């Protein structure tokens, strides 16, 4: 009986022993880059994932994803990011691809280039805010009006 039982368990194992080379599975929990409080980062600070700043960053900051600057944090650098939420202080020019949110405690000294901006009452900006969406719409409307004028001119001729 014992031998039979052994055989029963051994059968599927022969199949199982076929070596399975597995493709890596994507991890669910992505670790963000976090600059903690009382930590100072100097240099070209770039990350492929989200960045959370609670301390100080000097130099330049670059991420294709989200940047979160918490209250009390300070960035003295030019910033390029996919989207950003600012509750601390930023001294430098910011180029945000998609969406920028300024909390009431935010202080920004520098020019901002962004597609969409949301500002809470109390947020301070000292600098120029440019929104490329409007520029593109203007050029489009100018182009259309020029075309219309040309069509009218040709009709007159």
């Amino acid at each position: 009986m014992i031998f039979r039982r052994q055989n029963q368990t051994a059968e599927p194992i022969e199949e199982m022993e076929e070596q399975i080379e597995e493709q890596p599975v994507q991890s669910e929990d992505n670790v963000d880059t976090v600059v903690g409080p009382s930590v100072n980062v100097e240099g070209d600070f770039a990350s492929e994932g989200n960045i959370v700043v609670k301390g100080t960053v000097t130099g330049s900051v670059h991420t294709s994803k989200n940047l979160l600057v918490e209250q009390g944090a300070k960035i003295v650098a030019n910033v390029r990011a996919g989207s950003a939420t600012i509750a601390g202080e930023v001294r430098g020019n910011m180029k945000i691809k998609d969406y920028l949110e300024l909390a009431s405690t935010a202080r920004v000294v520098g020019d901002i280039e962004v597609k969409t901006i949301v500002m809470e009452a109390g947020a301070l900006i000292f600098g120029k805010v440019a929104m490329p969406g409007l520029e593109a719409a203007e050029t489009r409307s100018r182009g259309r009006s020029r075309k219309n004028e040309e069509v009218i001119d040709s009709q007159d001729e």
Partner: protein
Amino acid sequence: MYVYLYDNFLNNRKYNSILKQIEVRLVEFGIAGKILRLNNYIDAKPIIDDEIKRGAKNIIIVGNDRTFGHILSRGATCDCVFGFLPIGPDNDIADVLGIPEGIDAADVLARRRKQKLDVGWFNNRFFVSQLHVPPAKVRVIYDEKFQVSTPFKMEVVVCNFQPFYWKRSNKDKEEFVVHPQDDKLEAFLRPLTKTGWFGYKYEDPSIFPFEEMEVIGEDGPFVVEADGKSTKEVKVKIRLAKDKIDMIVGRDRKF
């Protein structure tokens, strides 16, 4: 051919029954093999090399996180497939690899789901689970691009497989866990700030995924603990060695 490397602590009588059960299960699966018992001072690499020369293709580590680190820190370069049978306390890595503790681990081993794993490399040595620098005056340079410093002493933990557990203070009951992701190493830096006359408190950790980093001591040498072994270093260069180990893993692995 399979070779099983048993840790020293498994000589304790309380592990006899579980070892017997596992050995019976391995015989049932037809994957039983030679058993070697290690002690703390044996370098695993020459033993593994010898067994590979004798025809071993699979080296199975039997023990806990310490055993896993002890064997793979030297044996990572060996040309064989590694497996793991977790037994005893302190088995966090098994959970990451998706290998259940005790007798069920034999089933995972028999399925032979193989995957290449990354390991960490520092000053001519590999580390598998974790590298730890206790609070010291250090600064850290990442990928030769940016530098992280603090006016206080700083604790550095670099995780490969072992998750990072941390509390805000010793009294705090809430424990935070960060699971490492694959393809990169994660460095956790915690400044140790002074509070009051005698009190010290850890700040919230900074987290940096990286491929290469340098830890430089500002006040001379500092202690480095990697996979349970400690050394004193002035400068440590840590790198990720990709796809270094062929490992049998479980379906429920965390990467």
